[in-house]
């Protein structure tokens, strides 16, 4: 901390609030307000990482999160931009991509072999002879990539937050804050997104000029919401802006957008332009003015405008010896520092740190050496148009600005400040105000004299600016000249790639990976374009920048993934099942008991005594109103107009192709009211289906999904009537409550609807009741059934029981081509009805001899799995859809699709799966109680 400069107004650090963190085992002391990068600079750490490919030492370059040089592993999270990451007490900071340490990285030798690592080397080298690649691949893979992905799951809560506003300002610099103040002042709801932890943009580092604080104060006083540490990373149609902050993904839907994304300073290309100590003027000014760290004592500033002189004064005032190298022949005014006009930096030297630069005329191959330990590259800024381009804005090359500027903007998009070409704070603020007012006006927030103010601001915003002078595309001499720091791509490699035929930016990008690294082209787009244009002989304007795509700034995968969500539904009796030792399985979104004891024991209880199964997950609908009958008549091929009140009828549901989409029961509660059940996993889809047709046909019927409102159990078995008698005062005799009847009665003092139906083929009662009474009803049934030997049964037992009755499961035994005739349910189709879904689609299908779904028995030790093939002379002719061992049938029983011609009682066929084979016999009637006497009893 001895390296801090004396206090100055406007500094970011709170010297009375120290913060300590661990840096590779060493305690680093910093102050609140520091970033990890500024604290390390103050602690004398010059090498902040090793480069991606050649493992060259790299130091702080931008201090704005725009380059790859200072990516570190912080508290386990890899690739954190340490230059903008605020310090936190006790955090752990590690540098990356080096072994054993960044200071002594043994991989530095890779640079010596760079002739072996040309662009696309992994496509070219090591592939012949063919056995070489498998040997070298693991080595290359272990060297590739940055940082280490933590093995522990990230348990941080991540959220999605939606925002809606009139005006969204992207960028909280001078232009953005001015725009927000105007827009919010006019009454528009306004949000500002600022990526860094404090607003102010380029004002933050400046030694003088308008303070960021007053602009922020104006914006907030006007009512704008400023979200700091929140980086916009994508703009989508709508418009929808996606932004990321530490713990959440923001989805913002503004009516108008103001882009005040500023500009990104660009480096210059010359030999060894990546040596630590060579940085952008933004970094120098932020380090000196905000964090009070002097990054070097002998400085060279390369510039072509006033910016470099401001940087030179900042360094001079901090006590450094400064030389300004000015590209303009006339130069600027020396003011306590030397000025070399008409010159550029031709080359740099030094290994772990810049030691000297060679200064000469642009285009020359040599010049005079100037010893230095700091180089500031000032004033070459490229407008950050990438997010703006995602709106479809047209970018046009501007000769004076030597940059692509947004000229044609979509109607709800505005641009202000450096992104629109402003190069002074005054112009940026005027443009910001103008954009803010225009956006407010366009969203209906008009203020008095708005038009006059807009006219006046237009004049202020349109300032005449000097033409930009850029440094030469490249320098001269030995040493690598880097265009792209992220991926370690040099001038020479770009030239090679162009010579190989990759002669446009988009091709160069894909081949050499320029602009594809962590910085996404922020630090290298201009250099890459200019080198590309030089190598191809085209002009800079002809060399379009590469297409920007989200994410524009690095976003953690956890932010995208959000927190873990698995919808899970449980019946109100769920805890009772758990207590009874049930194992559970998924049925759609529901957790349902798979078994309690053994499925065989549960089957035995149902067949001989009584069993109870929780069927709460059945989809349940109440359909009522004058149009209810008409709606059902159209939804089902079966007839319901003649269904008497209190009676139940089975029905298939078809689509207009005539394909089965569901089955279930329809119960008439009243003239105009029906209770409909559907398959568990299909409930949501059927709600959509039924309500959609109801909306389309405009019947006067209400459809209400009451699945969650009613719990339900099925009480089944020869003793079930006895159990019912103990549960209700109502008459439950076969005469009072016959098969396929629906009766309202109290069961265990709870109002219930009792349906005499059963999927398992025994005397049974399906009891529907308000779901809040689940545990009470379950307990009452179990208690009442105790003397009869009641057993709860799960889905596995139910599947055996239903197979013994040859009841189909839609979706299990049928598929997207199954019609009612094929599955033996043609009797439910009343083709004489005027119209129903599937009526036209079914025409003729009853006469098609295709396949049939039939029952089969199979006296085999082997249980054929679902999907086993039915084969005939070695050829596939059908498949098994369900099979279980049945005690009642004394063999394996199942359902299978077979050729229609075989569908007669007793026909034999062969089943095969892998090397297993078995003979099966067609059984057209249920294996158990074929006439349904037990069911109807």
């Amino acid at each position, binding site marked *: 901390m001895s390296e801090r400069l004396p206090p100055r107004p406007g500094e970011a650090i709170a010297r009375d609030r120290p913060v300590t963190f661990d840096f590779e085992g060493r305690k680093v002391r910093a102050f609140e307000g520091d970033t990890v990068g500024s604290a390390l600079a103050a602690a004398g750490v010059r090498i902040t990482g090793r480069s991606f490919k050649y493992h060259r030492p790299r130091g702080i370059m931008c201090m704005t999160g725009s380059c790859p040089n200072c990516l570190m592993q912080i508290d386990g999270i890899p690739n954190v931009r340490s230059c903008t990451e605020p310090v936190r007490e006790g955090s752990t900071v590690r540098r990356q991509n080096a072994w054993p340490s960044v200071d002594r990285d043994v991989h530095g030798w890779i640079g010596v072999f760079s002739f072996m690592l040309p662009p696309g080397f992994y496509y070219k080298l090591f592939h012949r002879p063919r056995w070489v690649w498998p040997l070298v691949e693991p080595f290359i893979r272990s060297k590739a990539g940055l940082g280490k992905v933590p093995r522990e799951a990230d348990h941080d809560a991540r959220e999605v937050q939606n925002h809606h506003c009139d005006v969204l300002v992207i960028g909280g610099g001078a232009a953005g804050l001015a725009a927000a103040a105007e827009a919010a002042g006019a009454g528009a709801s306004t949000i500002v997104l600022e990526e860094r932890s404090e607003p102010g943009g380029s004002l933050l580092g400046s030694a003088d000029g308008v303070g960021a604080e007053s602009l922020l104060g104006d914006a907030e006083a006007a009512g704008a919401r400023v979200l700091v540490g929140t980086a916009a990373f994508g703009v989508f149609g*709508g418009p929808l802006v996606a932004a990321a902050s530490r713990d959440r993904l923001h989805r913002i839907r503004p009516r108008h957008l103001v882009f005040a994304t500023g500009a990104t300073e660009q480096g210059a290309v010359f030999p060894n332009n990546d040596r630590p100590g060579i940085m952008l003027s933004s970094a120098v000014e932020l380090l000196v003015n905000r964090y009070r760290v002097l990054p070097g004592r002998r400085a060279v500033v390369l510039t072509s405008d006033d910016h470099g002189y401001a940087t030179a004064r900042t360094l001079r005032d901090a006590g450094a010896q400064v030389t300004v190298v000015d590209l303009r022949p006339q130069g600027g005014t020396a003011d306590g520092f030397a000025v070399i006009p008409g010159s550029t930096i031709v080359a740099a030297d030094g290994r772990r740190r810049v030691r000297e630069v060679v200064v000469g005329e642009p285009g020359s191959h040599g010049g005079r050496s100037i010893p230095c330990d700091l180089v500031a590259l000032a004033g070459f800024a490229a407008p950050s148009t990438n997010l703006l381009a995602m709106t479809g804005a047209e970018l046009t090359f501007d000769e004076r600005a030597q940059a692509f500027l947004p000229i044609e903007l979509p109607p709800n998009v505005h641009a202000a400040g450096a992104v629109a070409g402003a190069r002074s704070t005054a112009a940026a603020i005027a443009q910001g105000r103008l954009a803010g007012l225009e956006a407010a006006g366009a969203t209906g927030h008009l203020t008095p004299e708005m038009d006059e103010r807009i006219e006046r601001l237009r004049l202020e915003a349109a300032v005449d600016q000097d033409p930009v002078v850029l440094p030469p595309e490249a320098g001269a001499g030995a040493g690598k000249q880097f265009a792209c720091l992220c991926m370690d791509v040099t001038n020479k490699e770009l030239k090679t790639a162009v010579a190989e035929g990759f002669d446009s930016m988009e091709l160069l990008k894909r081949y050499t990976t320029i602009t594809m690294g962590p910085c996404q082209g922020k630090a290298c787009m201009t250099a890459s374009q200019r080198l590309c244009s030089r190598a191809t002989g085209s002009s800079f304007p002809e060399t379009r920048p590469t297409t920007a795509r989200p994410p524009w700034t690095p976003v953690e995968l956890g932010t995208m993934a959000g927190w873990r969500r698995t919808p899970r539904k449980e019946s109100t009796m769920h805890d009772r099942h758990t207590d009874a030792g049930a194992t559970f399985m998924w049925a759609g979104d529901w957790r349902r008991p798979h078994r309690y004891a053994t499925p065989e024991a549960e089957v035995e209880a149902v067949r001989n005594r009584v069993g109870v199964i929780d069927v709460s997950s059945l989809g349940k609908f109440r359909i009522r109103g004058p149009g209810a009958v008409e709606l059902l008549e159209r939804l089902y091929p079966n007839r319901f107009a003649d269904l008497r009140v209190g009676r139940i009828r089975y029905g298939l549901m078809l689509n*207009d192709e005539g394909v089965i989409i569901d089955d279930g029961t329809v119960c008439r509660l009243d003239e105009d009211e029906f209770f409909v059940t559907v398959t568990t996993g299909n409930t949501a889809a059927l709600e959509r289906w039924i*309500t*959609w047709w109801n*909306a*389309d046909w*405009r019947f006067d019927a209400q459809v209400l999904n009451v699945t969650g409102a009613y719990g339900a159990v099925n009480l089944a078995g020869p003793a079930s009537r006895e159990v019912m008698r103990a549960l209700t005062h109502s008459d439950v005799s076969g005469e009072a409550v016959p098969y396929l009847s629906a009766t309202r009665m109290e069961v265990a003092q709870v109002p219930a609807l009792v349906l005499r139906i059963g999927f398992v083929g025994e005397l049974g009662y399906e009891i529907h009741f308000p779901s809040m009474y689940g545990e009470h009803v379950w307990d009452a049934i179990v208690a009442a059934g105790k003397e009869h030997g009641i057993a709860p049964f799960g889905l596995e037992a139910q599947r055996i029981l239903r197979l013994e009755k040859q009841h189909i499961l839609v979706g299990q035994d049928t598929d997207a081509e199954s019609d009612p005739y094929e599955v033996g349910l043609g009797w439910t189709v009343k083709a004489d009805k005027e119209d129903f879904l599937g009526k*036209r689609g079914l025409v003729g299908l009853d006469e098609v001899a295709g396949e049939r779904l039939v029952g089969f028995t199979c006296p085999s030790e082997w249980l054929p799995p679902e999907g086993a093939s039915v084969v005939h002379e070695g050829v596939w002719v059908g498949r098994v859809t369900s099979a279980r061992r049945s005690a009642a049938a004394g063999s394996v029983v199942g359902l299978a699709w077979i050729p229609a011609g075989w569908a007669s009682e007793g026909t034999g066929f062969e089943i095969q799966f892998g090397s297993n084979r078995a003979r099966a016999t067609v059984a057209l009637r249920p294996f158990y109680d074929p006439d349904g006497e037990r069911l109807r009893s």
Partner: protein
Amino acid sequence: MTFLITCPNCGPREALEFSFGGETTRRAGPDATDVELAGYLFFRGNVNGWQTEWWLHRDGCRRWFLAERHTLTNEVRATYWHNDREGSTA
């Protein structure tokens, strides 16, 4: 793919709250020819431009309505109940 849709019942909401029901079609009735049936079941206009289509406010009021949406820009210029518009069929 996300934008705002104005539910006639609930107002403007995120498109992700809705389920898409497809472009409106003319259902092939019981007397349709094979060609009409196939056209209704398997062919869609797939227009590049304004399209009238079904939407369900799935995570809201769970009601179906019609929307006029531009298939290229996702701009939704009108939403209304089917009852309020004569003549169109699903």
